[in-house]
């Protein structure tokens, strides 16, 4: 397959077109700019619609309309913009409408900064909107994975009628790597629920999240929750590096996992039995995969570009049977392999404790 050198944001955008995205609605924000810029050039050429909305709020509601109409649709933003989209995402969840949402994370809170960050983990995985709502959260760690996961995100969103988020960051979005685009077969998910005009040959469809009767609302929530449970059973994805005999397992996702891989390699060179566990889906979180990766672990080190968010899921998944430590940099600072290696060494020295 032919390889091209592409920026993460542009590769992601190209993958969305190939995955059949027909409508993109967005609002400018750094560092996701290239996603919208690329799609404004390429999507109309491929029979799609690119529309710059008046706000993030409008953009996500345009996505809501397009998703209800039954087409594949996407929006892209960065941390502060995702907060603005929270309302619409909750409505998408409540109306069971599939779509793809890109978050090229930057530092927060508030305006924060424009350098890479992983500080939106909790928002993405726990409470992207109000109510009992969840979304698929995919965490790529390379330009190639930006491509692969966008395709999966569209398919899974349609299959489960659950929105899917790509939780990238400014580093992945801005860096260039060789990438190839897999042959993508058109997704055939039927959408008999779409509000696309009943054509006088079926009862009217309604896209809605309002249920004034509590028992009816509760039933609809439990039904949706059963899909979340199914996702947890069958849709988790994770990657392992040197975990088989690892006594020190580093858990990291996205950009920080790349740094951790270098640190693990360096640790191995020094005779330390280190390994790397990388969740690819953050929701559903790959609990069983983590347990497998940690079967010989004496200590676990979670590394994030935040003050420590995923570390809570790591502890929960391991049921506190193995000590879990945390190392993080935040505010747009990327940890260095040396910093992580120093942490690994520290844990290795105290692994008997």
């Amino acid at each position, binding site marked *: 397959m032919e390889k091209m050198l592409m920026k993460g944001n542009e590769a992601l955008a190209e993958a969305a077109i190939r995955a059949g995205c027909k409508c993109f609605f967005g609002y400018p924000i750094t560092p996701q700019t290239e996603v919208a810029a690329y799609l404004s050039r390429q999507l109309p050429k491929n029979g799609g619609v690119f529309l710059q909305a*008046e706000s993030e709020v*409008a953009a996500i*509601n*345009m996505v809501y*309309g397009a998703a209800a109409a039954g087409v594949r649709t996407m929006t892209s933003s960065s941390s502060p913009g995702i907060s603005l989209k929270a309302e619409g995402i909750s409505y998408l969840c409540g109306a069971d409408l599939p779509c793809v949402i890109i978050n090229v994370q930057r530092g927060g809170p508030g305006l924060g900064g424009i350098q890479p960050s992983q500080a939106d983990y909790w928002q993405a995985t726990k409470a992207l909107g109000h109510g009992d709502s969840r979304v698929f959260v995919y965490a790529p760690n390379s330009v190639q994975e930006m491509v692969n996961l966008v395709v999966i995100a569209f398919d899974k969103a349609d299959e489960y009628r659950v929105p899917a988020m790509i939780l990238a960051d400014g580093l992945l979005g801005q860096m260039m790597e060789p990438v190839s685009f897999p042959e993508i077969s058109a997704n055939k998910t039927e959408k008999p629920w779409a509000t696309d005009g009943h054509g006088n040959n079926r009862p*009217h*469809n309604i896209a809605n999240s309002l249920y004034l009767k509590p028992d009816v609302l509760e039933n609809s929530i439990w039904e949706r929750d059963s899909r979340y449970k199914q996702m947890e059973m069958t849709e988790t994805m994770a990657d392992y590096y040197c975990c088989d005999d690892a006594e020190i397992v580093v858990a990291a996702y996205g950009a920080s996992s790349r740094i951790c891989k270098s640190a693990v390699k360096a640790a191995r060179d020094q005779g330390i039995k280190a390994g790397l566990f990388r969740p690819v889906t953050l929701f559903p979180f790959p609990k069983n995969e983590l347990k497998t990766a940690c079967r010989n672990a004496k200590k676990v080190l979670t590394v994030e570009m935040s003050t420590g968010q995923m570390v809570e899921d790591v502890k929960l998944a391991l049921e506190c049977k193995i000590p879990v430590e945390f190392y993080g940099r935040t505010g747009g600072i990327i940890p260095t392999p040396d910093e992580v290696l120093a942490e690994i060494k520290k844990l290795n020295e105290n692994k008997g404790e």
Partner: protein
Amino acid sequence: MAVVFEKPHALTDVDLHYCPGCTHGIIHRLVAEVIDEMGIEGDTIGVCPVGCSVMAYDYFNCDMIEAAHGRAPAVATGVKRSLPEKFVFTYQGDGDVAAIGTAETVHAASRGENIVIVFVNNTTYGMTGGQMAPTTLPKQVTQTTPFGRDTAVNGFPIRVVEMLATLSGTALAARVAVDTVPHVKEAKKMIRKAFENQKNKTGFSVVEVLSTCPTNWGLSPVDSLTRLQEEMIPYYPLGIYKDVNVRTVREVNA
């Protein structure tokens, strides 16, 4: 026996939840009659708001979408851009169009989004119990202006169609009322014109309908109609503020 009057097909058999004397029912009927007469029910997608008409998705027989508060024009944009050959309308109240959704409304108009907005102005938030709306008249008593709307504190009501008429993307901006039979007939004509605009891809059409809220105004249905005539119409004059199909007064004089 010949049928001389019946419920429009575009309305379902679900009982409306509106209060006695409320004119939402008339406006629903007018929209449904236009859909029937144009034979477009199967090709129409309606977007309803948050507010008194929040459950309009159960009342219209075409495909329906429930939007978040104020977002109906953005949702309608998403539908229309996905399905440009279908008819898309929103049905919204004053809080939806002119307070929380002002940006969505103005920008849908500025883009010349080829949709119809049916904007029901009753100068109050009906569903939540009668609070001040962006269209509440000066001195009007509401739950949150218990001493009357003080313009020094709360500012002034927004004349929505006058504002939208200034935008190049707007094809039709008109204000009608449903207080008398002639006005109801005129209202239907204007809603029909808005849907015809969409058919002809003329652009954004908004029809503001002056409506009553007897419950929250604390008036009888008949007194409510009198208030509409004596207080609302003077502040919100009826008429066409923009129609790209006809030359405006300014153009004729130029």
